[in-house]
């Protein structure tokens, strides 16, 4: 089903432009958040969106290898941990200068990514998924065993990174804009990278690495380079996470965090420029709204994820590219309808959940009926 729908709806110039424009608008909107936060006197808005912007950086970096390179890394959260721990450990020993902390964190993330990449790129397919998972678990347990730095309890960072009077990171809007600029830079970097010769080889290797090797490209080296670049960018996201929360712990690199990152990328649309940004915003907003309805929000989110995987392969970006504005609108409408019902019923989680489950069941039955009809017409 997936391959058919992809090939039947080749992206036209106009529809890709739609998702491009929406992406730019979204990035611009993200730039307005501190102002909105002041206007609505809602400091939580800024907190939420700082988290979103930081995770978006990590998701964009994962998309470089997952979406464009076809390397399903199930251990990307490890670099968030490495970046965060570098900052935390340096701060613990009294080194607060950002000029030392940040480049060093990126460098070490790059080295760890190079080591993990060297080992895991020897394998393919499911084994690649498993070995990246295993190696990130190794890093996770390293954090757990680092008793000098809090072990599994984690470590508080008492003082934020110091940019020597240039930037005051304790000022929340300043920090937000720093993250935002880094996100813009990352998106721009990925855009330039995938459209360069390097990116073409990477994408060529995704669809057929043997062919690329036969043409004469050292595919392995290209993939490793991309893997290290992604690790370094994600390490920077880890630096921002640690600076933002003022706390590091192994939990930030738990394997389920890596799963979350993959979900963000796939939800938004793999291998598209703005897909991971869409995905991160959708994921974290959905988490926020659903968890305000019910502490059991994952009971809705889990099946939603299954449905996205089963029926909406291209994610949000794919829906835009295929011109399925109707699907997107229906999705948004359903979301707000549920939100309305929920507010009407106050803290009643059961009703929205039941409606959602019923809607899912309906979609499933409809899909099943269509498939059956298709199968019958083939016979």
């Amino acid at each position: 089903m997936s391959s058919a729908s992809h090939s039947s709806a080749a992206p036209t110039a106009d529809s890709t432009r739609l998702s491009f424009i929406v992406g730019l608008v979204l990035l611009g909107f993200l730039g307005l958040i501190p102002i909105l936060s002041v206007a609505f006197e809602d400091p939580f808005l800024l907190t939420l969106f700082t988290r979103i912007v930081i995770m978006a950086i990590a998701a964009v970096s994962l998309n470089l290898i997952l979406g464009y390179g076809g390397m399903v890394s199930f251990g990307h959260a490890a670099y968030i941990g490495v970046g965060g721990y570098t900052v935390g450990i340096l701060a613990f020993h009294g080194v607060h200068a950002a000029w030392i902390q940040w480049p060093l964190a990126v460098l070490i993330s790059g080295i760890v990514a190079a080591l993990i990449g060297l080992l895991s790129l020897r394998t393919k397919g499911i084994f690649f998924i498993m070995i990246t998972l295993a190696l990130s678990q190794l890093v996770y347990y390293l954090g757990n065993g680092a008793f000098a730095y809090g072990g599994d309890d984690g470590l508080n960072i008492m003082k934020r990174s110091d940019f020597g009077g240039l930037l005051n990171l304790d000022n929340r809007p300043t920090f937000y804009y720093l993250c935002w600029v880094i996100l813009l830079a990352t998106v721009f970097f990925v855009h330039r990278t995938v459209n360069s010769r390097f990116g073409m080889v990477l994408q060529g290797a995704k669809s057929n690495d043997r062919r690329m090797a036969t043409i004469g490209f050292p595919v392995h080296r290209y993939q490793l380079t991309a893997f290290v670049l992604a690790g370094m960018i994600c390490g920077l996201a880890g630096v921002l996470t640690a600076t933002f929360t003022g706390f590091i712990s192994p939990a930030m690199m738990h394997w389920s965090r890596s799963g979350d990152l993959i979900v963000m990328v796939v939800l938004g649309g793999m291998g598209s420029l703005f897909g991971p940004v869409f995905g991160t915003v959708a994921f974290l907003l959905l988490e926020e709204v659903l968890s305000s309805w019910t502490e059991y929000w994952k009971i809705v989110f889990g099946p939603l994820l299954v449905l996205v995987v089963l029926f909406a392969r291209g994610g949000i970006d794919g829906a835009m590219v295929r011109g399925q504005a109707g699907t997107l609108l229906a999705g948004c409408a359903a979301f707000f309808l549920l939100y309305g019902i929920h507010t009407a019923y106050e803290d009643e989680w059961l009703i929205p959940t039941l409606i959602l489950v019923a809607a899912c069941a309906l979609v499933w039955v409809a899909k099943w009926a269509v498939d059956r009809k298709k199968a019958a017409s083939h016979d």
Partner: protein
Amino acid sequence: MLLIFEQFLNGLQIGLLLFLLAAGLTLVFGIMDMVNLAHGSLYMMGAYFAAVFTEWTGSFFLGAALALPAGALLGIAVEVIALRTLYTRDHLDQVLATFGLILFFNELARLMFGAGGMTIQTPDWLQGQIMVLPGLPYPSYRFLIILVGLLCAAFLYVLVQRTRLGMLIRAGASNREMVGALGVNIKQLFTLVFGLGSALAALAGLMAGPVTTVQIGMGDNILILALVVIVIGGIGSLPGAFIAALAIGIIDTMGRAFLPNILGSFLSPSEASTLATALSSMLIYILMAAVLVLRPAGLFPAPGR
């Protein structure tokens, strides 16, 4: 020496639990080429079912006897509703969708059984100790786990090597299309194997229940270990899973038991135990990475893969 033997038994016990979980995982993986992260959730649900049924009937064995078919039915329901469509998809889709299922089941368990966790009460006669060797008492319940684990391994061996169903399972693992082409109802076989795997996962969960507490997310970490087991043992290979599971159980237990003493000579006790736990966990992943690099198909790959 006795201490080493006792820790060896502990390792064997954890290894056999891992094997019960990994057996279903490797069969599903081998035959259907399907990564099922939700297998850990079936393990957890099995433990919860056992806890609830034990409380309800007042007998651990009745509870277990009810929990097993419940686990199998749940697995079959999951297969029919969600996973069947995923067989033809790539591994990324399978990982994602089953990751969604983990989220779902963890919350479902929290909703149905509460966040506090449950304990499973074993009968009195299982709470004592027995002498496995002269001078070596061993908790009888843990000994029972070893017995059941070994029995299950033997049962699986006979099932896979000596029965018609096992023949189909082996054939399916080495060439799925050919089995289908020869007129076997492969869909039914998949569901059956999935149900069997789920029952084994539920069994592992309910056996582990009285030792650990039954809690949310208990399946998540052991699932990763089970994935390590099947990758080391070779995907689709039951003997491989058996050996790898025992090796990992023993490495993990020995590491946890003896590393603190070794490290304790130059670290404080609490530091040593933190580091030892982390090190013995790391050892497992280092083993897996080494196997993947040196023998990417695993130590005992199923024939034809």
